[in-house]
């Protein structure tokens, strides 16, 4: 049914639209094809529910060996290997032939300590998990990332935490979190009351997922903070670890919410941001909205005055350029990112009105994301990987859009 009964006008619109191009330039598909290998598919609770029985059976033996070994080290405080565990009944699985020691990781960002096999690698988080932002996956700096070098590259164990916002009731928090992702299979993320309950460091924890979901995740609340412990594996593939090993990892966790650090990422020593003296310092009390506007506008106006002229040195991705042009282009990007680095601490120092909630912090985080992408684009341009730089450039659209929304919502001047 047409809402406007005017076939003549409808046809005129259709004819006009028909004149537009129907074929994408080849570069579009080439860019996508180049990007795909470096982009992980989203996993988490959105995994499709799959059962690959044969694959799982194929890894049972090695998993069982690992279970026995890991259980041994956790219960004995010693190392993996031919240690005899003095339990009854005796273990029925052969111990691992090669000893594997344990290591302990204390997260400076998320506030906990955990024991893990010391042949795993750990990449500590470098950014906080802000309230209202979904927990991230592989490439996100918000997670403490544990990898088993012997496991498939897809597998990883992530730990992330954040302060509780307005929702301090665990069940309400879980329900709100679930609602934020309606695509999750109910079997993998049931209602909070139906989730399995365990304890982590004496705190009640909620477990969901399972081998068929491609993840196992425990959520625990302590000291006004929520923690997520998530073991991921390739959809349809063998699990990264058995439930027994997952439980042993959880048994080693010590929560210390008071030591968590939710501040924005530190600026590297020697960087422009570290050496720049903020022109405006934080006041002790939150600013009024008028004061916040005035101070932020001053910061942004000054930054824009420096950054805007750099744009004239930005070149087009679709053309050929000499090495000298590429070098100057990359320099301009770097200088632009440096200006962000100088601006970010000043924005962070502003004590925003309380009613703005976490929005100002998220705004700063978006600038940090943009700065990182711009700086990476500069590196790629210097390496003559212009297509890769364009992908990073395009990736700035999302944070840029959020920044624009923030500025529009609170009637703020545009920052560069």
């Amino acid at each position: 049914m047409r809402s406007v009964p005017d076939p003549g006008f409808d046809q005129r619109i259709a004819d006009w639209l028909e004149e537009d191009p129907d074929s994408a330039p080849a570069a579009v598909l080439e860019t996508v094809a180049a990007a795909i290998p470096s982009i992980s598919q989203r996993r988490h609770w959105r995994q499709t529910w799959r059962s690959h029985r044969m694959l799982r059976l194929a890894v049972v033996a090695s998993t069982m060996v690992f279970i026995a070994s890991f259980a041994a080290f956790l219960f004995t405080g010693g190392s993996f290997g031919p240690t005899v565990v003095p339990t009854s009944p005796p273990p029925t699985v052969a111990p691992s032939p090669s000893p594997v020691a344990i290591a302990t990781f204390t997260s400076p960002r998320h506030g906990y300590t955990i024991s893990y096999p010391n042949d795993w690698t750990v990449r500590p988080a470098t950014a906080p998990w802000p309230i209202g932002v979904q927990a991230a996956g592989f490439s996100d700096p918000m997670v403490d990332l544990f990898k088993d070098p012997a496991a498939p590259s897809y597998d990883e164990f992530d730990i992330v935490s954040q302060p509780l916002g307005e929702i301090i009731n665990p069940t309400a928090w879980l329900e709100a979190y679930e609602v934020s992702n309606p695509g999750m299979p109910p079997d993998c993320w049931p209602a909070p009351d139906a989730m399995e309950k365990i304890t982590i460091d004496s705190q009640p924890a909620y477990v969901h997922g399972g081998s068929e979901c491609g993840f196992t995740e425990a959520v625990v609340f302590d000291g006004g903070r929520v923690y997520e412990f998530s073991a991921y594996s390739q959809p349809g593939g063998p699990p990264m670890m058995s439930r027994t090993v997952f439980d042993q990892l959880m048994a080693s966790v010590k929560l210390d919410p008071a030591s968590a650090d939710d501040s924005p990422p530190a600026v590297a020593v020697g960087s422009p941001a570290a050496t720049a003296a903020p022109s405006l310092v934080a006041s002790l009390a939150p600013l009024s909205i008028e004061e916040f506007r005035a101070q932020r506008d001053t910061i942004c106006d000054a930054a824009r005055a420096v950054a805007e002229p750099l744009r004239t040195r930005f070149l087009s991705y679709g053309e050929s350029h000499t090495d000298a042009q590429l070098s100057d282009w990359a320099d301009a990007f770097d200088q632009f990112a440096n200006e962000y680095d100088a601006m970010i601490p000043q924005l962070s120092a502003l004590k925003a009105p309380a009613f703005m909630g976490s929005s100002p912090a998220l705004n700063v985080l978006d600038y940090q994301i943009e700065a990182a992408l711009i700086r990476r684009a500069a590196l790629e341009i210097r390496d003559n990987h212009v297509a890769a730089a364009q992908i990073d450039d395009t990736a700035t659209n999302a944070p840029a859009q959020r920044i624009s929304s923030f500025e529009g919502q609170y009637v703020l001047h545009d920052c560069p």
Partner: protein
Amino acid sequence: VRQQLVERAMRGDEEAFSSLAADAVDRCYSLAYRILRDGQRAEDATQQALIGAWRDLPTLKDPERFDAWLYKLTVNACYLEARSHRRWTARIRVIGSTRTDPEPDVARSVANRDALEGAFRTLSPERRAIVVLHHHLGFALTEIAETLGIPVGTARSRLHYAVRQLRAVLDEDATSLVAPEEQSA
């Protein structure tokens, strides 16, 4: 075969996804161009939609709905692209046109087309999308509602107001649509 490709891609098969992307890229670009009215931005939106499709494929509940789902991703990418200030690269982009200049003897047609172009650009991204889905792709309101994830009533009223806005803008500019020979007569 297509559903198998989707299912393989959902399990992380890059080759399968490349086949799907190659098949879909023109459709996505065609839709994005018509909404955004700019080749470079349409390229960006298409890339974002396809990359987003790869990233989020494991969340797709029904592989048979892949095409509709990809349309939705493309429209959403257009919304994002249209609203982004393109803060730090906007000024380097040269907005090109894929069309050739019109012949002198089709001045009226060109004037009409340009007027429609100008009127269309006054529409919000949401209204542009619904006009394109309905008048170019031929989607029924129920299909539009399903694709965009909005109630049918919303789709109907959005299309109604979009077309009404187009007509209003064109009516305002009616004098400029008069061909030169008519103006001098």
